[in-house]
């Protein structure tokens, strides 16, 4: 009997496909998310919009918060560790969380190295803005990738930019003559063996979700039509006027992403979405997507 294999790690992500993973900060919110049809929840102390507003150093959530959320839902529970903070990750692993997000939403703990994720029994998801970043995370042992987008903004433009970038670079990689692949890998800071794997399959070898700015059912369907495998919604649900209703609508839009009649129906009367942020108004050194190396 084997535990913690890469197949088990990537396999759980496969089971989450076509689903919505929602940020929650309390057991009540976790229940609302599960009731709305979330395929997993991300247990946090504060959603990204509040982290952004609060400033200062953002760290792993209090284990009590994570445990209380694990106790009330039957769906998988994820939690965030700081980039490079392998001790936070070990703590979350010992709590029994089902997935760890090594996340740029929290303040990085290491300005050069990410966590060596191969060494853990629990699987990891990591953010990426381009193919090189995704492949570096895979080489470190990530079992799932998500776009970074720009968290806590309710503005989908960065998530769109990132998925388009990843796909465009995959297309380029696949079209290159064999002898140019090593130079491509070098230019993108990508390990050659993982680059060759992507070139062979024509896609990332793991599930790729959208994250960072999704606030409406139409945003979710947009990311799915652009080729994402599923959706993370951070602040978009519990910073909106009617979280339960919006959560359910985003779940429906993620399943029926190609059916405009359904999208029109579920987009009606949702109340106010979360207030949005224009990306150009955020100073470059305050953009969470710049974190990670």
């Amino acid at each position: 009997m084997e535990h913690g294999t890469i197949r088990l790690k990537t396999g759980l992500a496969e089971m989450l496909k076509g689903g919505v993973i929602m940020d929650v900060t309390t057991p009540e919110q976790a229940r609302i998310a599960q009731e709305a049809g979330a395929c997993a929840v991300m247990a946090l102390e504060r959603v990204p919009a509040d982290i952004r507003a609060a400033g200062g150093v953002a760290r792993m959530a209090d284990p009590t918060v994570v445990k209380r959320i694990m106790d009330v839902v039957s769906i998988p529970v994820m939690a965030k560790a700081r980039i490079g903070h392998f001790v936070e990750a070990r703590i979350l692993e010992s709590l029994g969380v089902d997935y760890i997000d090594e996340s740029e939403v929290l303040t990085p703990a290491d300005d050069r190295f990410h966590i060596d994720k191969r060494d853990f029994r629990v699987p990891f998801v990591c953010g990426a803005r381009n193919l090189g970043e995704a492949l570096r995370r895979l080489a470190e042992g990530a079992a799932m990738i998500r776009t970074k987008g720009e968290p806590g903004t309710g503005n989908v433009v960065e998530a769109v930019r990132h998925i388009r970038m990843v796909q465009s670079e995959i297309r380029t990689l696949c079209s290159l003559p064999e002898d140019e692949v090593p130079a491509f890998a070098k230019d993108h800071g990508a390990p050659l063996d993982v680059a060759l794997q992507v070139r062979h399959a024509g896609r990332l070898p793991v599930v790729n979700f959208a994250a960072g700015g999704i606030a409406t059912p139409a945003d979710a369907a947009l990311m799915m039509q652009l080729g994402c495998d599923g959706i993370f919604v951070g602040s978009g649900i519990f910073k909106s006027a009617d979280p339960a209703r919006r959560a359910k609508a985003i779940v429906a839009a993620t399943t029926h992403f190609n059916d405009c009649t359904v999208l029109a129906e579920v987009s009606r009367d949702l109340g106010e979405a979360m207030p949005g942020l224009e990306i150009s108004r955020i100073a470059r050194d305050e953009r969470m997507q710049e974190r990670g190396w």
Partner: protein
Amino acid sequence: MVGMSEPCIGVLALQGAFREHRRALERCGARTVEVRRADQLNQIAGLVIPGGESTTIGKLLADWNLLEPLRERSRGGMPVYGSCAGLILLCTDIENSDQPRLGLLDATVRRNAFGRQRDSFEADLPLPEVGTEPFHAVFIRAPVLLRTGPDVRVLADVDGRPVAVRQGTLLATSFHPELTEDLRLHDYFLDMVRETPTRGQPS
């Protein structure tokens, strides 16, 4: 080349690993189609309910009015195969849960029976129904059956708890053959569809 005489298998595509099931079935020579709406049930001769989150898929089945049409097709003889979440949704009884379900398989299921993700495992399992070679089974936050009715035949177990069963035209496994290269269970299910006199098509 896939012949038109091959049965068309629907894969429920509300959420979960439907892409992997389609790939496995197509490698066995079947035609497949993704099913998200009740009217799509008319074109299929068998249905696979994939792994995913059973609460999510159950709610979507209820919200999009698929539960009753699906039960009708199954009672009319259409073979259905459920893996993991699919197995949970087929069961009549789900321990500690009132989540929506199809309730066709006379059994009581325990969700996440082995624990959380860190307890997920791979193991070689005797599965004589599909051959003498053991089946490499991938269990991810997997369920087990606590009780099975008189018409349910147990095909494989872990520590005495059923993890693969058949009841007439229903097949269910708590593990994920779609995550391995072993096609024997998909072949077995396709045989079930081919052996169904009407091929499960509505008359």
